[in-house]
């Protein structure tokens, strides 16, 4: 009981995750700034931002539905944190493992997007509503390639259990290389999930102010910001667990450091991609996902089936 609470609230749950995701935000912002020839923020900037927002007054539009408006950020926050608990951290064993947990993580990661939609919709602002509709439209475009990309790795391991995926790749050390196309697909789809350039269409600043978040302020906005950061870390952790399942048999400390490095590496790729591209339009985004990402994901699945049929037989 006590141990469970510790795991959920302190490590590797809430406290650790919040601190690490704020660090990841710093890393992302600093790198983004350096790539753009700027100085960038100091290391405590994300912490300071959150503290400042927590101290601010929160305004709720009088036409908004106050209950839904307040609940949406909390739902999003909770779902993102819960998802992290199922991902194998630095060893082959996970905290809470059961068959199909990879799917649960993926679904838990969908909840924040839905919450953003609900929060934006119930805030009744025009900009928020357009943003909400856009984030839902976008969801249908990136969710399929994201699922296909991640599950192709699971398919090769012949299990929907993150622990067993880790076990399989420990037994077949270099097999993760087959999944590299899938990793690229999942990484691009993850950009859509995190609403980062080139897929930051739902919160396109110059068009619809801040999209779903337009009316949010104070503590509620702090939770939304934290959710986005945590989503980034959880998404990166899931990708690291599924696509880079190596170095899991080392001693716990070295494994832990390696795991963090993997996450930071994926965050690095995300920052790099958002530095070099412009924002697409929603129709172009959907075209791109269905015309290029989904067929590529099919090819990856076919490849994995072939590997399974020929090499592993």
């Amino acid at each position, binding site marked *: 009981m006590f141990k469970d609470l510790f795991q959920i609230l302190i490590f590797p749950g809430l406290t650790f995750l919040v601190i690490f995701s704020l660090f990841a935000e710093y890393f992302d912002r600093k790198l983004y700034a350096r790539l753009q020839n700027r100085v960038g923020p100091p290391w405590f900037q994300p912490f300071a931002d959150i503290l400042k927002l927590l101290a601010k007054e929160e305004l709720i539009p009088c036409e908004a539905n106050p209950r839904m408006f307040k609940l949406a950020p909390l739902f999003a926050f909770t779902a993102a944190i819960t998802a992290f608990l199922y991902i194998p951290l630095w060893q082959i064993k996970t905290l809470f493992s059961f068959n199909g947990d990879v799917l649960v993580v993926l679904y838990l990661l969908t909840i924040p997007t839905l919450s953003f939609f609900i929060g934006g919709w119930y805030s009744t602002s*025009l900009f928020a509503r*357009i943003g909400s509709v856009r984030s839902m439209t976008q969801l249908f475009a990136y969710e399929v390639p994201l699922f296909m990309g991640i599950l192709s790795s699971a398919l090769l391991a012949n299990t929907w259990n993150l622990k067993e995926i880790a076990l399989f790749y420990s037994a077949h050390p270099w097999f993760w290389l087959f999944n590299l196309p899938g990793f690229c697909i999942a990484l691009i789809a993850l950009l859509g999930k995190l609403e980062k350039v080139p897929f930051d269409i739902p919160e396109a600043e110059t068009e619809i102010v801040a999209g779903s978040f337009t009316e949010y302020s104070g503590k509620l906005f702090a939770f939304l910001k934290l959710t986005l950061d945590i989503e980034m870390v959880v998404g990166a952790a899931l990708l690291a667990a599924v696509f880079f399942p190596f170095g899991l048999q080392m001693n716990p400390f070295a494994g832990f450091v390696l795991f963090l490095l993997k996450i930071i590496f994926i965050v690095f790729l995300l920052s790099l991609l958002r530095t070099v*591209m412009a924002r697409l339009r*929603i129709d172009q985004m959907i075209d791109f996902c269905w015309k290029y990402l989904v067929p590529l994901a099919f090819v990856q699945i076919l490849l994995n089936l072939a590997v399974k049929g020929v090499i592993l037989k």
Partner: protein
Amino acid sequence: MHNSEEFKIPIGPQHPALKEPESFSVALKGEKILGIEIRLGYNHRGIEKAAEERTYIQDIYLIERICGICSHSHSTAFVQAVEEIAGLELPKRALYIRTLIGELERVHSHLLWLGVAGHEIGFDTLLMYTWRDREIVMDILALLTGNRVNYGINTIGGVRRDISKEQAEEVLKAMDTLEERTKYYIELGLSETTLVKRLSGVGVLTYDDALRLDAVGPTARASGVKRDVRKDDPYAAYGEMDFKVITEKNCDVYGRTLVRLKELMEAYQIIRQCIKNLPEGPVTIKAPRKIPAGEALSRYEAPRGEDVHYVKANGTEKPERVKVRAPTLANVQAVKQMLKDRFLADMPIVIAAIDPCFSCTDRLVSLRQVDSKDKKTMNWQTLREYSIDWHRKQGIDFKKLNQKLKTNV
């Protein structure tokens, strides 16, 4: 809007896409734009009236502050008109320096535009890069004129500062750096997929429409209209410069980007020619304080397009009438056409693509009594009465206070 698919969203007067207050009311169906209403007039500052109250010399500095970016364009256009009325023949060196500053201004304005355009389509890296490079030309302007924005170099009868040999060398050095960077941006503009996707086919303004709607500057030239005051009606030293008028046949935002980028390359050439052929001699001649009666129209190719100034003198030291037509006023009509059947996502970049400068544009306000039959123009007295009436209806009444004040006095 709960049940209908169509709704109106306000872009402006306060909106992150706009750097200045201006109202665009967009009727949307889903993401598609059905119609757009443009309302100008949030930035009216009464500059024309103020210019009539001041002397010509004071006016140069006032007119320069019409725009924060093409300040030299406005002051040169005004000074040219005054010089024409006074019949002044300017020394060559002054004309060359004016041309030089004018082209440096074009460089900084186009680089600024490129950054803003990048920001509007979510490409912030482009913004950071171009604005970093823009600092180079800003520093050069500060070196030559003493100021980064409002240079204050023009005066009636010439320019106020000469250029030394060392300064000229600094300018040439900076041009080399900038040329190299601009080449990189042209390459980037031609090859970066997301950039091309977001810009091409967006905000189409055909050749005929550009003529019909009287587009000017890069907006017109991107539609294939070969219209450039520097070539058509050369002023300052442009008659002696060797440069091309850049046109594109794309007719879209992508074309406008290319026109501006290539114009940058031409501007570097003009600056080099200015420095190379800079004639010796004085930079100013004595101008009379009182300008003889007469009128003149002066045209100037500002970075945003043709800038027109009209000055009427009455023989005193103050102008009788000054009229300014900024290039944005000519181009803003085209925005409606460009946004026909486009998406909301295209709106910021299409508006940005004409390189709008709304505070320059807002000139004359004429108030008409819409509720009266003849819709005549309101004068000051009726406007005041209308205002008092309106406030009374809102429950704000100063009648009692006024009486109280009167009895106290």
